């Protein structure tokens, strides 16, 4: 397979992110205006200065007009993209490729989701007509099966693993408490989380991503043009995507302790970026912690530690804010919240702040250095055995 990548050819010159919250007082239009206004300002551009737009939204609107209308765009190409929870990152991919191809000088990727108008609890999929035989199980329940599988395969006591998962959630709450834009800004202890009632397998509500509205945006241009806008752009090192074929669900060899789509996706990303040891070469990672067992497995699938050791590394604090490799320093999906279309770009926003030394003091990671200046963002969409995966790598 030929995946050449576009390393060092595209620069990110502005990234913005709204607060993620239950924005009862804001609709899609307001969220888009908030995110794009900040992004334009960051690059000193107007809406008309940007040549092309990619709008990522899973189910908050159809067609590019969802963005063109509130922004009043005149004669601009706007493409709405969707790739489940990797939608925001998908928008970035497309905008970056358009600019790398030379079709446009500047392009904006915007992600938005308005989940709180449905009146329903949780994230609910838009119903497409089926023959009625599809699963109605929640994503929480599907991912909950990872925990006992992991415990069994690596000989971890189930109660101990329960505390490991709570430790992951607690870490993300600690980080989110230091993030004015996060949905949940309260620290939560391991004991508190372990004490919550189970709602899906062994998982409680606090093992699950927060549900919130929000938007985020990024502007890209060719790397040689970046100096016209900002002195300290981020450079795209890798953009990788894999769409699974669902075989994991029905393959007796699949054991629910790994996500093969993510392993493949990460391999491609590291090859594009020239990374051989992610654990030491990355300064931080934003990963898709839709559920706590997901983040656990991601540490191994993304190559941050050896198979079967992530649980111990979590307990040792390796991925804490002040750890060896900070994971989800902004609080992750867990406490920042997960407006589906925006999350991928929200992760980029944290990379934008941290790599350029702009993160608030109480949340600033100490791993960034001239020789260690790469950030990884990761999204997945779907379920164990059938998912899509995105990995992006960015540097200064």
């Amino acid at each position, binding site marked *: 397979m030929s995946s050449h990548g576009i390393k060092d050819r595209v620069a990110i010159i502005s990234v913005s992110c709204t607060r993620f919250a239950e924005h009862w007082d804001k609709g899609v239009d307001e969220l888009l205006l908030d995110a794009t206004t900040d992004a334009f300002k960051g690059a000193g551009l107007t809406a008309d200065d940007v040549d092309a737009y990619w709008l990522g939204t899973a189910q908050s609107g159809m067609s590019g007009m969802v963005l063109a209308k509130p922004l009043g765009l005149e004669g601009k190409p706007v493409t709405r993209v969707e790739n489940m929870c990797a939608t925001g990152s998908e928008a970035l991919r497309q905008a970056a490729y358009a600019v790398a191809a030379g079709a446009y000088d500047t392009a904006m990727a915007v992600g938005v989701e308005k989940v709180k108008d449905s009146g*329903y609890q949780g994230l609910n999929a838009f*119903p497409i*007509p089926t023959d*009625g035989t599809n699963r109605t*199980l929640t994503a929480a*329940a599907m991912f909950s*099966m990872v925990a006992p599988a992991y415990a069994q395969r690596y000989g971890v006591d189930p109660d101990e693993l329960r505390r490991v998962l709570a430790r992951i959630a607690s870490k993300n709450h600690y980080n989110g408490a230091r993030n004015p834009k996060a949905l949940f800004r309260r620290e939560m202890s391991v004991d508190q989380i372990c004490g919550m009632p189970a709602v899906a397998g062994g998982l409680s509500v606090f093992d699950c991503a927060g549900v919130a509205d929000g938007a985020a945006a990024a502007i890209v241009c060719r790397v040689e043009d970046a100096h016209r806008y900002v002195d300290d752009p981020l450079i795209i090192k890798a953009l990788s995507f894999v769409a699974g074929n669902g075989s994991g669900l*029905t393959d007796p060899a699949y054991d629910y302790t790994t996500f093969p789509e993510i392993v493949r996706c990460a391999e491609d990303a590291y090859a594009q970026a020239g990374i051989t040891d992610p654990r030491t070469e990355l300064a931080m990672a934003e990963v898709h912690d839709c559920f706590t067992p997901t983040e656990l497995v991601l540490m191994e699938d993304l190559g941050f530690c050896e198979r079967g050791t992530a649980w111990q590394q979590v307990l040792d604090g390796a991925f804490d804010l002040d750890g060896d490799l900070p994971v989800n320093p902004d609080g992750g999906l867990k406490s920042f919240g997960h407006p589906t279309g925006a999350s991928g770009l929200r992760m980029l926003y944290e990379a934008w702040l941290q790599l350029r030394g702009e993160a608030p003091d109480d949340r600033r990671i100490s791993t960034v250095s001239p020789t260690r200046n790469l950030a990884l963002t990761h999204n997945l969409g779907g379920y164990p055995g059938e998912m899509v995966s995105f990995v992006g790598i960015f540097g200064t």
Partner: protein
Amino acid sequence: MPARGIVDYATYRPYRRLDLTEIASVAGGGGGRGTRPVASYDEDTTTMAVAAARRCSLDGVGSLWFSTTTPAYVDKTNATAIHAALRLDPAAPAFDANGSVRSSVGALRAALAGARSLVVASDLRTGLPGSPDEAAGSDGAAAFVVGEGEDEGEGDGGVIAEVVGWGSATAEFLDRWRTPGDPASRVWEERFGEGRYVAAGRAAWDDALKATGLAADDIARAAVVGSHTRACTQFERSVFAEPAIPGSAKTEGFAGAAAPGLALARLLDAAAPGETLALVVLADGADVLVLRTTDAHRPRPVEEPVGAPLAYGTYLRWRGLLTTEPPRRPEPARPSASAAGRNADWKFGFVGSQDDAGTVHLPPAPLDAEARPMADATGTVVTFTVDRLAYSPSPPVVFAVVDFDGGGRLPVELTDVDPADVAVGTRVEMTFRKLFTADGIHNYFWKARPIR
């Protein structure tokens, strides 16, 4: 002339049992002693009919008759769903004979006169809380393969019980009725119906004896069923010296359209070869069927009903008699008729596919050349979870990844099980169920249940 009669039969009782002593304290009266079988929230008369019919040998079945007083649909044939689940020949017609208890007798009588046929009756009996119908009712299904023997009663495919003759009496009198849309049936004064039924029963009985040339003493074993319990008892006493059916069959309650078949099955279970049996059905008149077991017949051991208790509150919720707060989740979307029609073999028949290497795919993969029927497959739970967030007519959803013996894996919902009873390694079989009803459309598919 080849023998004509019953070739095979099987019954089905649902897993749950309602303790009748729980009723009075909630409903202010009613209930009784013992328990009654109750269909699961994901069962209806169609699914229970499939459960019974699957246990029969269906070789050579050329038509299907289905009877119930509680059809899942009107104005649409329900037997076609049963036909699809059993994967019968598309050339075999499938008919409903629905609406009343006597419908099932009519279907049986018509089928016994024709070529090899599957006759299945199924019912779900409910009454208002605290009512006699609630306590005396019973859910279940009975299936019969009937027709001609291939070689005079010897070996497989042979007739195990020959029809000797029928007796009948018909009269128009209002003992029990339900107007469509009403939640429960109503009855006139008991003693009125008792008199009319005993008279009709006697007339049909005499008619049967005359038609068959038999005397009452020639009948080795008999069963009397009907919705009017006192009438059945009075008729029995007037004709037989001893009770016609001993023990458990009576205490399982009245199963409506399935009652005649369930009683007949119990008669056959107990009968030795060469016995003359009589089934009396008191339903809007009376019908008497006289059969004789052949040399090919063998008695069957009585199946002890496997039952788990069901709380009365849950029973009321399942029957729609108690509306509780739904979860703050969208209700499921209705299945698409065109998609369901395209995928009928998978949806109704649980037919997967296999590729050239023999790998089984569930659901069937579009690139595979060969179909792989999986309804009769057994499997093992590899992992499972309990989902308290997902929509369900009766939460929580118990869900397992099942590896099937001989190949194939499917994540699938479990039923007839309490969450605490599932473990990795639990052995399961497949069962045809109704997942939910949305927009008036019943969504049928398969679930797994522990093998017991």
